[in-house]
């Protein structure tokens, strides 16, 4: 306990810890608070048809023609926009890929694949500026194959997405949203509001939104404090003194892990309190769940703090503080750029997104996956710390000095 208090005091004396707190507060002000002021106390619409409440529909009569036309246009221009990494990427297919897509279009439209390829080549030779498809009106006099079922159509679209390398409008994640977007039915909108007001009791919905914003950044924010803290002994030349102490490596590393996690989680609970008070201000007279912010922060964000800290500790012990920062930053970047704002929760997703205070049922339908995910990362963080403790012990015994890239290449060689 004494060691735990000492490690916490060390963190309180660190400038980086206060920068971390500043980042937590700024995230709250620019994300959650900003959204609450913008959208808080939204009133129920009087009727449906509003473009504010849209959803991905599954109407085949809408999706099939729209997706087919889009694919035909992209095919003729041999230019497809995909988002495999979150950024727009223009894909140009080679002859083999183009032929596969032509065959898919033949199955959908009945237009002969050889004819399509001939027109595409003629188009490419005549036009260099793209998207002059109106020059070929004949191509758009087609009918969707009536014997093609909607499921088969979707399968063909997913095949196109595979050919393009993923992230296109024809993927399973985007097909219904990009081509089937429609206003929500009034009953569905009212159900959303009813769930938000009576089942979520307002605060549960906002708690999910609050946690969503932090879950994006925690895996990144934690690495800086952890890496700096773990390398403090070496910087102050205390490592040999500490190495000679009787305390076991496991106890020392676990205590540091506990101190780091506790001190980085504490500001998040204060932000939960602030969020709670703001929601009370925006919803006077409503029956709120006064524990919502705290329980969601504990269940959703604590495992994120633990995982971020555990991974950072392991990387710091194996490599160095700088390497841990770069690797974990790259990991964060990839996870954030490739994710969507809200969607199905994966069992092993480190960053869980649910960027709305609504859609309660969508979240609740995946509650078991969410709980598994959080438990998994809690256990994962402990495993990382146990391995870090093992590595620390090897270093203490002088049997391992971390992976030092390029050291062997530039080892000093005597001239003698």
């Amino acid at each position: 306990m004494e060691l735990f208090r000492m490690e916490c005091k060390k963190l309180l004396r660190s400038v980086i810890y206060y920068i971390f707190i500043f980042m937590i507060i700024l995230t709250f002000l620019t994300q959650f608070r900003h959204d609450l002021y913008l959208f808080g106390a939204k009133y129920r619409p009087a009727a449906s048809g509003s473009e504010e409440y849209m959803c991905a529909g599954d109407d085949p009569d809408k999706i099939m023609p729209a997706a087919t036309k889009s694919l035909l246009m992209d095919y003729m221009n041999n230019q497809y926009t995909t988002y495999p990494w979150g950024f727009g990427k223009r894909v140009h297919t080679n002859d083999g890929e183009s032929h596969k897509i032509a065959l898919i279009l033949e199955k959908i439209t009945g237009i002969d694949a050889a004819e399509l390829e001939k027109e595409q080549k003629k188009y490419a030779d005549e036009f260099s500026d793209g998207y002059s498809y109106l020059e070929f009106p004949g191509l758009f006099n087609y009918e969707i194959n009536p014997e093609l079922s909607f499921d088969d159509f979707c399968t063909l679209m997913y095949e196109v997405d595979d050919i393009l390398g993923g992230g296109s409008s024809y993927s399973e994640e985007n097909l219904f949203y990009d081509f089937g977007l429609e206003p929500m039915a009034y009953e569905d909108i009212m159900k959303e509001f009813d769930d938000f007001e009576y089942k979520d009791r307002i605060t549960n919905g906002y708690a999910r939104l609050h946690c969503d914003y932090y879950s994006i950044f925690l895996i990144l924010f934690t690495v800086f404090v952890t890496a700096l803290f773990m390398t403090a002994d070496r910087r102050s030349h205390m490592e040999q003194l500490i190495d000679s102490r009787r305390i076991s490596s496991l106890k020392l590393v676990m205590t540091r892990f506990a101190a780091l996690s506790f001190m980085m989680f504490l500001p998040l609970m204060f932000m939960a309190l602030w969020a709670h008070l703001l929601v009370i201000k925006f919803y006077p007279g409503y029956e709120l769940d006064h524990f919502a912010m705290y329980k969601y922060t504990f269940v959703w964000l604590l495992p994120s703090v633990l995982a971020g800290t555990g991974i950072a500790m392991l990387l710091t012990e194996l490599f160095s503080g700088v390497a841990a920062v770069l690797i974990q930053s790259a990991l964060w970047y990839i996870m954030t750029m490739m994710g969507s704002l809200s969607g199905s929760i994966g069992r092993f997703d480190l960053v869980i997104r649910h960027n709305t205070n609504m859609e309660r049922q969508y979240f609740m339908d995946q509650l078991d996956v969410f709980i598994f995910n959080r438990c998994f990362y809690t256990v994962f963080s402990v495993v990382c710390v146990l391995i870090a403790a093992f590595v620390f012990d090897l270093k203490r015994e002088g049997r391992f000095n971390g992976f030092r890239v390029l050291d062997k290449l530039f080892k000093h060689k005597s001239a003698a």
Partner: protein
Amino acid sequence: MDSECWISCLSINLRRNSLIHIIIAVGMTALVPVIFSISALPVNLAAQPLEFYMTFIGMVLIVPVILPEQDNVIREVVRARRTGLLAVIIMRLIYSAAVLILLYGVVIVLMNENESEVTMYMYFGGVSGALFLGAAGFAGACIVDNAIGGYMVSMFYYIMNYGMGERLGKFNLFAMSSGIEEGKGWLAAGALVLIAAGLIIMRITRRI
């Protein structure tokens, strides 16, 4: 210090202190065609790899400039030498900036060869953004006297641009991707100011 010494100093710094960071920067640049499409892009899509991704190269190259002397013992040994540490740090900054400019140049040429709409302003804008991000981290590292603090400042500034890019005005890293074709000069000037501030802070507090 005579020119032979400077050449030796440059060679040793490149090999021992900066090589790993340059390798990482080159590796990141090599991934540009993998992550992004680089052919036949209009201006706003062509600006994306330059602003959203390659700006990190500024952080990778510029922030660790003070890393070798982060240890106080090493810094005291180096300060006792005739060659000023400040001059060595400036030398590292110059060649890091040169590598950054070169890597951006490679990507610009590659995109141009692949018929993307890239201009000299985009080249200047991309380099300015990367230098600014690196300089922000450098200044942060000088204040905290730790490169990790510098990385923290750089990453935080990058994230701020996602949520509050418009409010950052002329210091918006992602302006070109939003269609704004001006203001990058402010980033370049800001980079110089931040680097100068960092060096002054180090001079005063660490007596380099």
